[in-house]
């Protein structure tokens, strides 16, 4: 899928009227099948950029085009069809606890499933071999029938990535896929993703905290700082000076964001007996 952004200005819903933009871009275009890494200090707007491209966040001004279509000009079924072609993996894996891994992975294929098929799949998983292959690509084949809440944080994150392999999407937007993986697993996960994307001509946009991993796996690097694009260069031109400037005065650049706490359960309402 081809991505084009023009004159973008994004503000967060909760922002005060006078606050500066969370993200401001003049122009960004990613060709179909291209693989791009986005780097930058925390709070630079990396996640905002991904959500913008995923049509999860509506820009205040500007034009988002996915394969030449502006998702915000489409309505109803047409918008859903367009959304069905993209896949956004948030940083905290969006897996309900108590769901089984096989169901959680197969949920990636929901855009292509009808209501009946998805109901039936809750009783008997529809595509066990597919789920197994996707998990095996991340070394998780034996966890197929485990419950999600019995997995470690890293395993959960890889289950979230395995979901991508089952989607009918042609654009993968992956937010911090390595945040809870050890270096070895991280490299393996990244190469699995890039290889799978290359094989099916899928556009891959990944935000990364690990600069070395970004430089080693991607040919095009976008640097974001304070909600603006700092550079958009082939990897060979990303020099140490540029990186130092990108992360200047940002000592927490390599710290990992902690997972947000689950909201507290509501107390059982008392009832007259």
């Amino acid at each position, binding site marked *: 899928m081809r991505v084009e952004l023009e004159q973008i200005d994004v503000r967060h819903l909760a922002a005060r009227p006078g606050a500066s933009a969370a993200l401001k871009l003049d122009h960004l275009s990613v060709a179909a099948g291209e693989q791009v890494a986005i780097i930058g200090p925390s709070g630079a707007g990396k996640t905002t950029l991904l959500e913008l491209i995923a049509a999860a966040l509506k820009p205040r001004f500007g034009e988002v085009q996915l394969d030449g279509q502006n998702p915000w000009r489409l309505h109803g079924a047409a918008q859903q069809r367009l959304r069905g072609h993209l896949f956004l993996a948030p940083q905290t894996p969006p897996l309900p606890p108590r769901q*089984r891994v*096989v169901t959680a992975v197969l949920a990636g294929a929901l855009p292509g499933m009808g209501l009946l098929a998805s109901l039936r799949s809750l*009783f*008997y*998983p529809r595509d*066990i*071999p597919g789920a*197994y*292959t996707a998990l*095996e690509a991340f070394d998780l*084949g034996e966890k*197929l*029938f485990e419950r999600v809440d019995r997995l470690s944080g890293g395993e959960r994150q890889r289950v979230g990535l395995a979901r991508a392999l089952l989607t009918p999407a042609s654009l993968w937007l992956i937010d911090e896929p390595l945040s809870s993986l050890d270096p070895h697993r991280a490299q393996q996960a990244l190469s699995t993703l890039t290889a799978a994307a290359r094989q099916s001509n899928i556009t891959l946009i990944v935000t990364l905290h690990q600069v070395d991993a970004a430089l080693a796996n991607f040919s095009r690097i976008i640097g974001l700082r304070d909600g603006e694009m700092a550079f958009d260069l082939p990897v060979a031109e990303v020099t140490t000076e540029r990186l130092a400037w990108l992360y200047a005065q940002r000592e927490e650049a390599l710290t990992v964001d902690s997972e947000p706490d689950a909201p507290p359960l509501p107390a059982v309402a*008392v009832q*007259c*007996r």
Partner: protein
Amino acid sequence: MTTATLQIRDPAWPWRLTWIGASLFLLWPLLVTTEFRPWLLFEAQSREPTWRFLAAMLPPTTNADFLWLVLREAWRTVAIATAGIALALLLAVPATLVSVRVLSISALSGRMAPVSFALRQLVRWTLILLRSVPELIWALVFVRVVGLGPTAGVLAIALTYGGMLGKVYGEILESGDAAVTQSLLRNGCSRLQAFSYGLLPQNAAELISYTVYRWECAIRSSVVLGFVGAGGLGQQLDGSMKMFAGGEVSTILLVFVALVGIADFVSSWLRRQLG
């Protein structure tokens, strides 16, 4: 992909089949026992009176005499609940004072004395018995003894809610920190003094809040008590329903829903004030 991976079957599947089968197997006797035949609702024989009744419900009766009557009965419902709770307190407070472990003087030196232990158990079991009998049954019994009217309702609420309040008061008092009270008792205070200087300040808000909440519940249940002749809105509703006076029924129901809404609001406001 090897052929081996294609052979994987869901290990939970046999369990799921068993569960589905077992629940269907259990559902059948349930449907038979409860005479569950929803299509009967749509047969002409039952459809006609239903329609007639529903049609009569609109518009609600609004003549002044009837409204006045309903308002008076609504007040009586509140009064039955309030008087019932007041009597329930008379029952629950002494029972709590006797049965709370923290206030036991003999328990200070290790074990409780056998006589007080027996007394405590007796009070507890009485409270459990009182609240195990549904208030409607108490009301049925008292209507037989004192005749139709609010007295039976007040007594029924007093007994059931006395049991409930006594039990929950005990739980609240025993859940707190016992050290303050016990040190007062060790210093030679009487049980009542230890209660009012040690236990009460700790737990007063929670105790009052629970009582207010129970008062709200009592209003709901005093309507139900009217159905066996214990006065209040329920008795009026029962009468109107037996006469198939749909308009009166809808007026009473509306007043009742409003009453419960107001009680709900007052009770949650009060409990918020108490913090």
